[in-house]
């Protein structure tokens, strides 16, 4: 009954082909085709989502596989439609559409628009295909398609060497994760004989060592794609691409695919306590780790990139906690909360990026140190960005508050049940909330408040760019509350049993819990500190670096904990070292074999026929080039000399005698 869902994925794919072939002759370099395809996908996904919700009577998970065909042999491809994928499809196609429209203004003056829109719609197809795949192999195929588009779009302005190397870095780092994911998927197939997600979720991995290894390998893929520690280093560099790309791929959609992967393999993760704990630790650590690096960045997009890493850390953390609790028999609140945060974050982070893009479009630089006082010049952008910052900081009633609170609540429950380590991670989460609020408002105050610091002449962006901002700002405000109004996000997405709560119960639960106020206090404190330092400037920002410890911290953070340098060193010295050694080995050692066979060829050629000598001489000359001094002696010995022949004969005799001896003595 969902057969038309194929249209959602197919529309962008067809658009991709059309743009490649006809794009350069249409208006705006194929933008019209792209927008039409994205619009189609969006409308169809909304219909689909409504249908799925209607079927499931609000909450009961529906899943159906449509459009099956055999990829090779027994491996069956198709679409899996359930609550999660329907929600993701609406989300992704909506954001793609909005950002596609925004691109009309942002990319208006670029010469390679056709290439841009072709890669853009191919990415959309990849993301929609990923979220609707019914098996892990198909998932991987679309996942890599996204990776390719991410590579191409980061390197969109390939004349800049930074962009080219950032693109390469992104592909390489995610490739490490992808390799492990690939092995994980193969391990699943080897133990279950299927790639089908529904079947795998139903059957689970049989107990044994693989039960822990497989979820960890899958999680490694998620770590690469979602830029979690230790494979996070590509995302900040990826900001070299156009801002629309950063907003769509590197904030709203593609980096969430890792979270989605963990969600899809949730039962596998939950079945293994080692995997669950790893997921929690990586998520919690990444959240605070990335937030700390955002504190010192001056590039407006990089602050947002670190923020993205940190927020995805929250989602991963929530999923890990949910997995741990799920196995112990609790409901999957954390799962719901993570998906909830995924949706909210997609809206407000896309908003933040697009607003930043609007600012960059206006001032022509990414450096926040030369901005300031832009509020009066570009009011719409400023207000929109304020909405985004509030949502990011987790101030009610903006969307970020509801989902972040739910995740932290879940982690706290895990801490109560499983001991100190999770309580510790909960504390880290609260500190992250404080840091998040601080850097979000540091960004906003540095950009929009006070006086202009540099020689810039800003102007408000065209309407084709501001309208998407307004639309997203509205969603940043209401997307969290909408779920509360219908009685909790659990009605839309859940794993396992349904969650039935009333709106009032939910609100009471949230606002009577002391945990809520702790988080809220942290966020408000962060904003307050940012206000004092960067808006009122009552305290100079220099006080952070007045002590030697502060200076050391700043240096450490600005150098991103020296991890980039370490990876670079590893690649350059170890990787290239092995490569050079192998190359040397090939040129020098293995060519020794060639010399040997060249000598052999020489002997055969010399002995064969005197008439042929002229023809063979060509060979001899060629080979003599290779055969160095040592072979000259050999040649003198082995040509026409009776003694050399006798020597050879005697050696042959010995060999024959030896063989006979062994043979007569009765055994090989």
């Amino acid at each position, binding site marked *: 009954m969902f057969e038309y869902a194929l249209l959602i994925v197919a529309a962008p794919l067809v658009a991709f082909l059309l743009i490649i072939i006809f794009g350069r002759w249409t208006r705006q370099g194929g933008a019209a085709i792209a927008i039409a395809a994205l619009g189609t996908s969006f409308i169809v996904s909304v219909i689909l989502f409504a249908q799925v919700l209607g079927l499931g009577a609000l909450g009961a998970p529906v899943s159906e596989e449509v459009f099956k065909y055999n990829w090779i042999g027994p491996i069956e491809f198709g679409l899996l439609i359930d609550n999660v994928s329907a929600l993701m499809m609406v989300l992704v196609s909506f954001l793609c559409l909005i950002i596609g429209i925004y691109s009309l203004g942002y990319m208006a003056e670029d010469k390679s628009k056709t290439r841009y829109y072709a890669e853009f719609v191919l990415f959309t197809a990849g993301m929609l295909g990923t979220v609707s795949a019914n098996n892990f192999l198909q998932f991987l195929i679309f996942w890599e398609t996204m990776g390719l588009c991410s590579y191409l779009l980061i390197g969109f302005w390939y004349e800049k060497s930074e962009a080219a190397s950032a693109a390469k870095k992104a592909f390489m780092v995610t*490739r490490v994760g992808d390799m492990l994911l690939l092995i994980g998927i193969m391990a699943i197939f*080897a133990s279950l004989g299927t790639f089908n997600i529904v079947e795998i979720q139903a059957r689970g991995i049989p107990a044994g060592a693989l039960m822990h290894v497989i979820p960890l390998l899958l999680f490694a893929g998620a770590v690469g794609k979602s830029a979690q520690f230790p494979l996070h280093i590509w995302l900040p560099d990826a900001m070299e691409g156009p801002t629309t790309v950063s907003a769509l791929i590197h904030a709203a959609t593609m980096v969430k695919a890792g979270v989605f992967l963990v969600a899809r393999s949730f039962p596998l993760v939950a079945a293994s306590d080692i995997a669950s704990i790893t997921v929690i630790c990586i998520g919690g650590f990444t959240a605070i780790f990335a937030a700390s690096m955002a504190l010192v960045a001056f590039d407006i997009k990089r602050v947002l990139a670190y923020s993205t890493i940190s927020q995805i850390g929250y989602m991963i953390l929530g999923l890990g906690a949910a997995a741990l609790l799920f196995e112990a028999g609790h409901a999957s609140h954390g799962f719901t909360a993570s998906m909830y945060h995924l949706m909210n974050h997609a809206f407000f982070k896309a908003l933040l990026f697009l607003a930043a893009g609007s600012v960059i479009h206006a001032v022509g630089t990414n450096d926040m140190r030369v901005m300031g006082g832009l509020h009066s010049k570009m009011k719409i952008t400023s207000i929109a960005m304020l909405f985004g910052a509030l949502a990011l900081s987790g101030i009610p009633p903006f969307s970020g508050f509801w989902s972040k609170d739910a995740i932290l609540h879940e982690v706290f429950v895990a801490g109560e049940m499983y001991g100190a380590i999770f309580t510790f991670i909960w504390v880290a989460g609260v500190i992250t909330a404080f840091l998040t609020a601080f850097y979000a408002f540091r960004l906003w105050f540095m950009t929009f408040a006070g006086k202009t610091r540099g020689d810039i002449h800003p102007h408000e962006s065209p309407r084709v760019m501001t309208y998407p901002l307004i639309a997203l700002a509205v969603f940043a405000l209401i997307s969290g509350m909408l779920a509360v109004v219908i009685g909790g996000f659990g009605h839309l997405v859940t794993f396992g049993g349904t969650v039935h709560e009333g709106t009032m119960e939910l609100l009471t639960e949230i606002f009577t819990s002391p945990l809520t106020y702790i988080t809220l206090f942290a966020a408000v404190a962060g904003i307050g500190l940012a206000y004092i330092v960067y808006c009122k400037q009552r305290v100079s920002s220099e006080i952070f670096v007045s002590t030697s410890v502060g200076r050391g911290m700043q240096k450490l953070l600005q150098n991103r904990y020296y991890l980039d340098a370490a990876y670079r060193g590893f690649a350059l010295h170890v990787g290239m070292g092995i490569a050079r050694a192998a190359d040397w080995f090939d040129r020098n050692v293995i060519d020794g074999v060639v010399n040997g066979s060249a000598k*052999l060829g020489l002997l055969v050629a010399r002995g064969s026929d005197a008439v042929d000598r002229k023809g063979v001489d060509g060979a001899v000359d060629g080979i003599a080039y290779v055969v160095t001094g040592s072979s000259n002696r050999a040649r003198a010995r082995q040509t026409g000399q009776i003694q050399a022949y006798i020597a050879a004969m005697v050696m042959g005799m010995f060999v024959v005698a030896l063989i006979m001896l062994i043979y007569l003595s009765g055994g090989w």
Partner: protein
Amino acid sequence: MLIDFPIISSILIVSLLGTLLIYLFPAGDRGTKWFAVLLSLVPLALSTVLLLGIVAPGSVELTSISAGGQEFLAYEKAEWIPQAGISFEFGVDQLSGPLVFLTSLLTTLGMIFSWGEKHRTKEFFAMLLFMQATVAGVFVSLDLFLFFVFWEGGLLPMYFLIAVWGGPKKKYASMKFFLFTQAASLLVLLGILVFYWMSGTFSIVEILNQGQVIPLGLYTDLLFFALLLGFGTKLPMVPLHTWLPDAHVEAPTAGSVLLAGVLLKMGGYGLIRFNVQMLPGVSDGLYVLVAVIGIVSIVYGAFVCLAQDDLKRLVAFSSVSHMGFVTLGIGAAMLGGSKLAMAGAVFQLFAHGLISAALFMIAGALGHNVGTRLISKLHGAAKRIPNTAGFMMVAFMASLGLPGLVGFVAEFTVFLGVYEGFEAFFGSGLWVLIPAVAIVITAGYYLFAMQRAMFGPEEEDAGEMKDLHSFEILPLAVLMFFIALLGILPYLLFDPILGWVGGLV
């Protein structure tokens, strides 16, 4: 519809006759090229019929004969030297049919790509046609003696292509190529003779029908080893690969295309036909050896690539690395009984033929049009030669195994089969991590090459750069079409192969 027409011998006769006819043209005649290309379309069309007969038996029906549980299609037989039991015996199956098609396709495309060849044009095109006949002959021969005749015959045109139309070190490279492959041929001849002595016939069909012709034991293992060395040199497998980079670097573009596209496949074909199909049941240690050689080739080749500056040399070593998947697939399939690994190995033969042909065309085009193939001298060339850069990107992505393109299907199925095979034999499939490291390294060297050669700021004083000519775009576009088609709908070719492998492993 049933086709009872001697397709295979027509392919061979047309190509061989064409070789002679081209020599009748006066030197420098412009019609030569047209004649050669149009003539090569005939074998291409006939091979397409063969391919259809294999992948879509419903649409085209070919006469068949069964041999040892497998079927050979389009079977033909005629006496040649009856006293020694040698005959003209042809037939194709799911293993050889796609390769015959690949040979014809790449010959035509290589000819079109060499439209700009100025030096001794007539002989050049004649050599390409001759090569097509001999290589296709290797794949279709069901008589061991005939097989060997074609096998040796294929060396000649390649030798001349390198020695006459080659680069600066052509003498050295062509001699190295000849000596290496000749030495390998000796081992193959030895193997063929052993088969003849033990079974009393040269016919592959009869040998397969006899079943276990060679008594199990030491002799089987020795024979297996000798054939492994012989075919492995052609494949090539580390450490017998050193002729390959030199031959590729010096060969003209069409020569490289055919060398990488089909000549290497003769090694893989021989391994599967002889070592696997005709020589079952050798000791496991040898299969472990094959698998280990495959792993070493994959990882070693990838690492050597990382240090190359000449694009053609890089692509040549990447061939070493990618043909390692064939060896690994065969080894793993025979160890753990994984059909997927064997089918993946067969599929990789075809996939690598398409991809490496595209890669060599691009490297060759850079050499002709830009004047250098050195990555370090091509700074930021994408701005000047966008079409070259675009095709290069797609070909690189196909070669590094991007899902959705044909390379991924082959690599993934081989890895999957290796996982199954290793789990069955060694107890854990996670050993696959070792060859899987090559996934990352492969991405590394291609992206590194792309970044340094094509991206980045433009060089100010770079010389004149010409983008692809239209006669260069056409063959590349055809290859890209097949690469994408079989990447998205691999079952078209993979399922028939899988069915064939079912009777083998």
